[in-house]
């Protein structure tokens, strides 16, 4: 087991290097100008732009820039952002709490909802409950978040005025009232994300349960005279959770990527919003850092998922 983990970690290093190189190359070759917002301003002539490019190190050829980036990364330096002129890592730390609060909480709620709903709708297949769940999860699945988000804003924020449109990231929670405010401002973005994620996970949980429900060992358990509740929870559930847990583990890195559309819609300004504005502003160091952190997490959680598979399913052996 230890040997397996060690080997996987060692394989991960060249994988990450290749990933970082590819991302860097794509970003370097893609068109864009960090000063694009001032593109037509005659007060910023080409000579000024050239000075700024030199300051950013953009006057050097990109393979050299990559070499510099990767070596400073080994020293723990993620570089500085073109738009804030300050260290990238500070920005990431600043954005992380918002993303964890909103996207992380939504993921947690989605998992907590999806598993029991999935189980129930599998056990009571084709019942009214199952039909409803299927219907709503297909809606949640197929309606994009920019649509549900806008709809929620229109109904609950603009017409009913229950929730604010603008998310305040500087709200200090020091009393019950401010806590209430925080809950209110988090409600809509979390709701939009929960709808989408629950939908997907419910479908997965349901089909995984159904796969197992029709197997021989279930029939055997029932034939032995076990109570249906025990059959479902002890036998079927434990087995059908294995793929679901892997899926949940693989989904965790996406929390850190933020939810680009939802964050933008509600102005949560977490990591997703940071990524998209940085891409728009050609703020290469920030895009590099975010995508690279994301790839590290993906590789890591892949490994964790694989290990968990072995823990949960004794038939799997690592060699």
């Amino acid at each position, binding site marked *: 087991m230890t040997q397996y983990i060690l080997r996987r970690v060692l394989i991960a290093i060249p994988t990450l290097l290749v990933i970082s190189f590819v991302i860097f190359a794509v970003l370097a070759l893609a068109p864009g100008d960090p000063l694009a917002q001032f*593109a037509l301003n005659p*007060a*910023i002539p080409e000579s000024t732009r050239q000075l700024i490019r*030199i300051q950013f190190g953009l006057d050097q050829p990109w393979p050299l820039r990559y070499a510099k980036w990767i070596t400073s990364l080994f020293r723990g330096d993620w570089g500085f952002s073109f738009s804030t*002129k300050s260290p990238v890592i500070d920005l990431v730390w600043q954005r992380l709490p918002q993303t964890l609060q909103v996207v992380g909480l939504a993921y947690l709620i989605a998992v907590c909802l999806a598993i029991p709903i999935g189980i129930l709708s599998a056990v009571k297949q084709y019942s009214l409950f199952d039909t409803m769940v299927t219907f709503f999860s297909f809606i949640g699945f197929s309606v994009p978040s920019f649509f549900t988000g806008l709809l929620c804003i229109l109904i609950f924020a603009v017409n009913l005025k229950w929730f604010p*449109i603008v998310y305040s990231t500087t709200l200090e929670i020091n009393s019950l009232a401010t806590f209430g405010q925080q809950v209110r401002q988090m409600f809509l973005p979390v709701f939009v994300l929960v709808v989408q994620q629950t939908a997907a996970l419910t479908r997965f949980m349901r089909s995984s349960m159904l796969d197992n429900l029709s197997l021989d060992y279930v029939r055997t358990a029932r034939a032995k005279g076990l109570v249906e509740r025990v059959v479902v929870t002890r036998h079927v559930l434990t087995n059908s959770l294995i793929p679901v847990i892997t899926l949940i583990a693989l989904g965790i890195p996406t929390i850190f990527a933020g939810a680009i559309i939802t964050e933008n*819609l509600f102005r949560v300004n977490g990591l997703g919003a940071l990524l998209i504005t940085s891409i728009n*502003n050609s703020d290469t160091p920030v895009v590099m850092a975010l995508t690279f952190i994301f790839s590290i997490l993906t590789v890591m959680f892949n490994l964790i998922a694989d290990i968990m598979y072995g823990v949960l399913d004794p038939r799997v052996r690592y060699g």
Partner: protein
Amino acid sequence: MSHKRLWTWLVLMVTATTLLAACGRKPAQTPPTTAPVAAGTTAPATTAPAATDVPKPTTAATEIPTAAAPAAGGALKILYAQAITVINPYQSTGTKDLDGATVIFEPLARYNQNDELVPYLAEEIPTLANGGVAKDNKSITWKLKKGVKWSDGTPFTADDVIFTWQYCADPGTACVWTSVFANVDKVEAVDPTTVKVTWKKATANPYSTFVSNTGMIIQKAQFANCVGANAVKDAACQKANLAPIGTNAYKLKEFKPGDTVIYEKNPNYRDAANTFFDTVEIKGGGDSTSAARAVCETGEVDYAWNLQVPAAVLTPILAAGKCDTVAGGSFGVERININFANPDPALGDKRSEPDQPNPILSDLKVRQAIAKAIDRKPIAEQLYGPAGSPTCNISVVPLAFTSTDLTCERDVEGAKKLLDAAGWLLPDGKSVREKNGKPLKLTFQTSINTIRQGVQAIVKTNLADVGIQVDLKAFDAGVFFGSDPGNPDTLQKFYSDLQMYTNTPSDIGLDSYFQDWTCANVDSSKNQWKGGNDTRYCSKDYDALFKQFTSELDPTKRAELAKKLNDFLVNDVVVIPLINRMTPNGKLKTLDGPTYQTFDSVLWNIQSWKRTS
């Protein structure tokens, strides 16, 4: 099974009706009607119709006691579509950063909404009459206000002004506004409250430096070690860029780059007793539509910047009645540029090079026909709404410099006659004109943007009416405006016959604005398409007129020449001005102070903003 289906349908229908009912409530949007429904349990306070300012209608009642008369204090909440990322104005990457810096910093003087100078750190505006501007236009002497303090309590002196110049003029600093200081020979302190700026060559616009949002004064003590490469590389300077010390009414409290800036009252401000708000909060991100809703419908924020929303969407939001739009001046003129070079792909590397004349558009009659065929009215009314008004001029600010002679009504018959005269005839049964067997086909490019694609569609139909076929292209704004010499889709390469974008003079002098149509500035592969004249227009007469303009120092004569330059360009149809764009900013009716702006930040007078009843 069947009765189960029935149940399913019933539940679905109930859900659907609830949703529809919630949506349908929209027209009756007055606080008294919704409050009992929406906030019945949470905040009975909001039902009072006499409430003067209710930025937070529901549960906010517990935190901010809403006074009957607006007492000073509270928070001013501002929404920007783009978030502020850096506060040092000399390291800014967009207008939003300059606006963020404006709340903290002051220049010597600012422009008001009528493009007149208002002294800020200066005691008075130096003029020829009061001897502040030298007779030979080679220097200007500013008297500074006495007793001004930085927000850290230290005195503001002439040294800070000199330092600001040294900071930005150093090439290593990579200051964004180097061009503002390009003509500065030296800046000296005559005494601690008098500064003399000497120009390299006599200038007609002595107010280009230390004025407006590109001339704000930074503190020498804070940035002394940040000149040159240190400006962004040194850790202390990085901190200073994000948390600078200023002289304006507010100072920095908290800054999350790319998200929110919170400012608080500066107790050392010279008029601190009259600063209305306790805090100012500028939040960035999101889309313009929801920003408009946050001001006009929910009243969550007091002010929203640049509500660039199609008129059809914006008008019903404004109808909620909580807000006013602040629009005026000029954010720039949306124009169609004519390519005087041939963009034919068959030319390969010679494509759009200035020595390849455009086979269709080199003919003045064709250009005139295009200009006559375009109808500005639907563009302004259906697409721009409060965000722009039709214009026939390419130079619309300052008002004294704007031509009043031109008209640009649509004239379809006139356009057809011109095309007939130019030899482009309409063959029987065809809808596109031809000359020598070649059809009259043009390509028309712009950036991707809902409104711009709307304009493209209108222009296409307008020109189809006179027998010109237009093929439309649109590119991502980052690419189109990106000035990347390796990319074929930039506005500088101009690989099409017509293109549309907005441009605006960067300073009130207009020299650099009119320079972009001179022969010397023509874009080509030789100058890596960095000339600035993307039309490739080159006329000796225009150049002569431009030279006369730049060498003229008398303001009245300059105004006449600026009008002539404008008329020259429009009459020769080098450009087709369409819309004078205004950034419509939205403000709550209870907020007093915001004005429109052309040559300065829209927050130029934020120190005097207040709430009224």
